[in-house]
């Protein structure tokens, strides 16, 4: 399973992200990541906060697995509770990236 994480915008305007291939992770961590992904959502989602909001940070998680591709897009106003643990894991590993 491969996971592509990107965040951009927000007050800081800093772009960060990380690409993870679970095949390269230690077995225990790969298992934990699989559990986080499973808990996150079985389907894709796209949610945006209110159009009048300003400085919301945008998040994108793309998961490529045996069954296909799952895309999760949301922002600070619409972070799904089920995704919070996976998001925290990815944010801990994210590094700065030039804006794409």
């Amino acid at each position, binding site marked *: 399973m491969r996971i592509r994480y990107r965040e951009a915008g*927000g007050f*800081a305007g800093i*772009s960060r992200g990380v690409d993870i291939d679970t095949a390269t992770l230690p077995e225990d961590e790969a298992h934990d990541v699989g559990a986080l992904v499973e808990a996150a959502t079985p389907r894709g989602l796209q949610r945006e906060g209110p*159009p009048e909001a300003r400085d919301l940070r945008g998040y994108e998680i793309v998961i490529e697995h045996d069954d296909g591709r799952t895309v999760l897009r949301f922002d*600070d106003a619409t972070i799904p509770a089920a995704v919070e643990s996976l998001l925290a894991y990815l*944010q801990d590993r994210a*590094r700065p990236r030039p*804006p*794409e």
Partner: protein
Amino acid sequence: MSEDRHPLHCILPPYILERLAESPDARVRRRAIDTIAQSAALRATRSTLAAMGAMAAIPSPRARKHRLVYDAKHGNFVDLPGVLVREEGDRASKDPSVNEAYNHSGYTYDFYKRVFDRNSLDDRGMSLVSSVHLGRRLNNAFWTGEQMAYGDGDGSLFVRFTKSLDVVGHELTHGVITHTANLEYRDEPGALNEHLADVFGSLVKQWKKDQTAAQADWLIGPDIMGPDTEAEALRTFRDEPAFEDDPLFGTDPQPKHMRDKYTGSSDSGGVHINSGIPNHAFYLVARAIGGRAWEKAGRIWYDSMLALTPTCGFADMAERSLQEASSLFGARSRERRAVRDAWKAVGL
């Protein structure tokens, strides 16, 4: 402060709630204001009005400075505003985030009132509502369209976002923009929106410190930077990167000239990136005119903001600021020349 924080969980028509919000009884007033703030019906009304370019506002009891600070208690956006913990006139809290949100929104109100004779964000005295402790380790602060919301930071990249006066001034200025130019939040209009928020956020700080343009740091967010980064600030108005090759932040992506403008789709078309171009133009104007930046450069920019419309871009801002400089100081004034030279220097 009263311990009674329960909103009025009953079906009261809005005009009754508004009257109760002006009650001389502090407990009744607070409960009414809580109810107004939390009313799902009002939220729906506000959303509709926002789409029309106008915005409902939580009424201030006396149409003057009125701050409400809530504790979001690490809840999420849907839980806003949270629990009311400090209202206008209440004694200081033991929580520094609460006091910073209260004090910094007060300084921002005072700045707009004394410098531009503007009575709050809507110029009709709307309440300034802040929620602190939003989310867990949230590295952000934002304007929801109705109120300010502040994260605590993760303690590594950032500390609490209430700590910088320019951050609070920036967020509140988004509210002013919503009630004036109402610039769209994408591409150049969005970058102009971010630019104006940075300009007045910086000017609030300079005004509070009584600094001249030469004395000001021209930085955004220096007080919220976390202990694990050496980056001095998030943005600078000067012609230099705010940070470079930082392990946590990378390199400042803001251009200072049109030739380097970001053209990708990230960050709604680079609204926090391309704001660097007009930011630098404003800095050049302020430095060329000299003195206190809010008195002349700030006045030109404020009057321009009032005249802009939602789809305006950088060229429109440049043209408008030239017109305002002429109106305020004369067509052959050094102030107008400073504006012309600054826009030219950034490629406009």
